[in-house]
């Protein structure tokens, strides 16, 4: 129940002497002060918003979360929770709760004691503690395990206890650090749905870290995509998916990955078209309008088309299918197009079998994403 504001937050880890000598390879920027794990992080998280930080490992998402929690010091910048500056406040005084990837349950305490621990420290009366713990246990359906030790619980149950421990004291902000990544695939899907329900019930601000873009898309009100310490894009799942800010976001969000081609963007007045070899596709009016607003001229570009937007038909680009993966309702075709790997999703048409070795691929003008060839930014959005 609070707003969280990060202003120019930077995290620099001092570099060890031996790493300096070895010139240890890292994608992160290295300055005189050390390795920059998080660069100029700016975001206003609204009250009751579900924010998901997503990115590949080592992108700084967990570090950002730990800075909000107070487990890592903020090197530069300011962190506000509910309008109060929190940089120097100890984690215990920030009124936040956190769910860890490893659950981090206290092994010597029962589920009840685990959940009651934070309330006991606040010296709440016993009956109030009991009421609150039972309330949280009911939400998570773990009431029957209250006097068990964590050892005697399954992974999914431990996860629930960890969440229960976090929500029991009604924190201002709930932080979750890859809470589902230790669960098996089926349980993960189930817990994901339950997290959404939970968010509706407890009505609190949630900051959630994951490397799984499906989790990010399904859970987040807004998604923060990060790479090498830099924010790549902040937006709703729709925005991030439909208007990726650059080639990294376009490639990271959505499975299978977006296909990229090297081609030419041609401007004729207010209309734009994308040419790949001899195959020319006119861009939709909306796209053309945004490109024109940014004064984009004819140039070489990288353009991307998602696998489900490539159409197998009578005309288009020639490709040779190497492998076909049957996924149930659809098939994923892995093809070679001019020596490059391309993935195409074709719907499953039941008994109907067609020869899928040499195919022709086409795409519509409203489904093409054009990126600058130099720095990969989306030309529709501008820098």
């Amino acid at each position: 129940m609070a707003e969280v504001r990060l202003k120019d937050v930077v995290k620099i880890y001092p570099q060890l002497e031996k790493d300096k000598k070895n010139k240890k390879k890292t994608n992160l920027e290295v300055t005189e002060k050390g390795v920059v794990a998080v660069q100029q992080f700016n975001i206003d998280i609204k009250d009751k918003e579900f924010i998901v930080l997503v990115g590949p490992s080592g992108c700084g998402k967990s570090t950002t979360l730990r800075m909000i929690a107070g487990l890592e010091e903020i090197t530069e910048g300011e962190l506000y929770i509910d309008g109060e500056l929190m940089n120097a406040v100890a984690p215990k005084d920030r009124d936040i709760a956190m769910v860890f990837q490893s659950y981090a349950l206290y092994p010597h305490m029962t589920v009840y004691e685990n959940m009651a621990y934070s309330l006991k420290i606040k010296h709440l009366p016993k009956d109030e503690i009991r009421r609150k713990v039972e309330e949280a246990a009911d939400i998570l359906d773990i009431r029957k395990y209250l006097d068990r030790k964590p050892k005697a619980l399954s992974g999914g149950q431990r996860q629930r206890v960890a969440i229960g421990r976090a929500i029991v004291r009604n924190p201002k902000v709930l932080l979750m650090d890859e809470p589902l990544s230790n669960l098996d695939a089926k349980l993960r899907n189930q817990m994901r749905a339950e997290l959404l329900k939970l968010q509706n019930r407890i009505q609190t601000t949630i900051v959630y870290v994951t490397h799984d873009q499906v989790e990010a898309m399904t859970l987040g009100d807004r998604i923060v995509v990060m790479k090498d310490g830099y924010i790549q894009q902040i937006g709703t799942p729709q925005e991030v998916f439909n208007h990726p800010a650059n080639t990294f976001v376009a490639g990271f969000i959505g499975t299978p990955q977006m296909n990229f081609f090297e081609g030419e963007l041609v401007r004729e007045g207010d209309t734009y078209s994308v040419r790949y070899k001899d195959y020319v596709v006119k861009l939709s009016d909306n796209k053309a309008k945004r490109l024109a607003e940014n004064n984009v001229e004819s140039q070489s570009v990288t353009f991307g088309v998602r696998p489900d937007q490539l159409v197998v038909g009578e005309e288009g680009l020639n490709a040779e299918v190497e492998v076909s993966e049957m996924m149930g309702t659809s098939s994923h075709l892995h093809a070679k197009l001019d020596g490059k790997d391309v993935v195409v999703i074709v719907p499953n048409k039941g008994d109907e079998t067609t020869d899928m070795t040499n195919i022709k691929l086409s795409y519509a003008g409203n489904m093409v994403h054009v990126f600058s060839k130099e720095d990969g930014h989306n030309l529709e959005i501008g820098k």
Partner: protein
Amino acid sequence: MNRKNKIASIQLAVLRVLVYAIIIFLCFLCLFFFYLLIINASRTNNQLQRGFTLIPGGNFLRNFKNAFTDSSIQIPRGMVNSFIVAAGSAVCTTYFSALTAYGIYVYNFKLKKLAYTFIIAVMMIPTQVSAVGFVQLAYKYGLNNKLWVLIAPSIAAPAVFFYMYQYLKATLPLDIVEASRIDGSSEFVTFNRIVLPIMKPAIAVQMIFSFVAAWNNYFLPALLLTKSEKKTVPIMIAQLRSADYSKFDMGKVYMFILLAILPVIVVYVFLSKSIIKGVTSGSVKG
């Protein structure tokens, strides 16, 4: 095939007999002297002069009473003193070693590595070397004949620290510490309520070891304790040696020795399970 099996089973039987024989012999070596001690403690002085036997005598209670009420060597007083020193040392050693190990394991600070290396280096210095300075210091400030002077140095126990550190490394994920911080507990509360219970097995083992070590310690108490009402059991036993044997009731002497080792035996008999558990813990991550 059948023949081969028969030979193999005979070989196995012979091997087993051999192994058990060796184990029994080793047990005999270890336990025989304790047995003899108990036998001797139950015999009169006269019986003892005549040589040794394996059959217990009937003087056990009498010897016990004599030993307990002896005026020159006050064994009950000694046992109380020893117990105070041993229990105090055991508690201080384990608690503060655990605290130090926790500090070095959990916190990142400059010179952390140096601190660790320094503590390990102290482990290499024998007590006898540092004792010279310690005894001088104690006498200079008039701290001889005070039991707490024997307890206080046990706070710094590098070997126990090392054990605790290894144990923490194997059993305590840092996430748990962080979870506790976020749950709102201060650093001390985290240590006392979360970390100490997790370290219980390690603490139990080290408590036993340091209790026994302090109980049996002769070196420092002998240098520091001169008043008879402050003496611990090992010093009293040592006094027996300087006494004139011909005048002494040997049954009583054996009873003294039996009383001196009694707490140690009790500790091992009742806690051997957790001693073994503690020695092997940490080797297998569970």
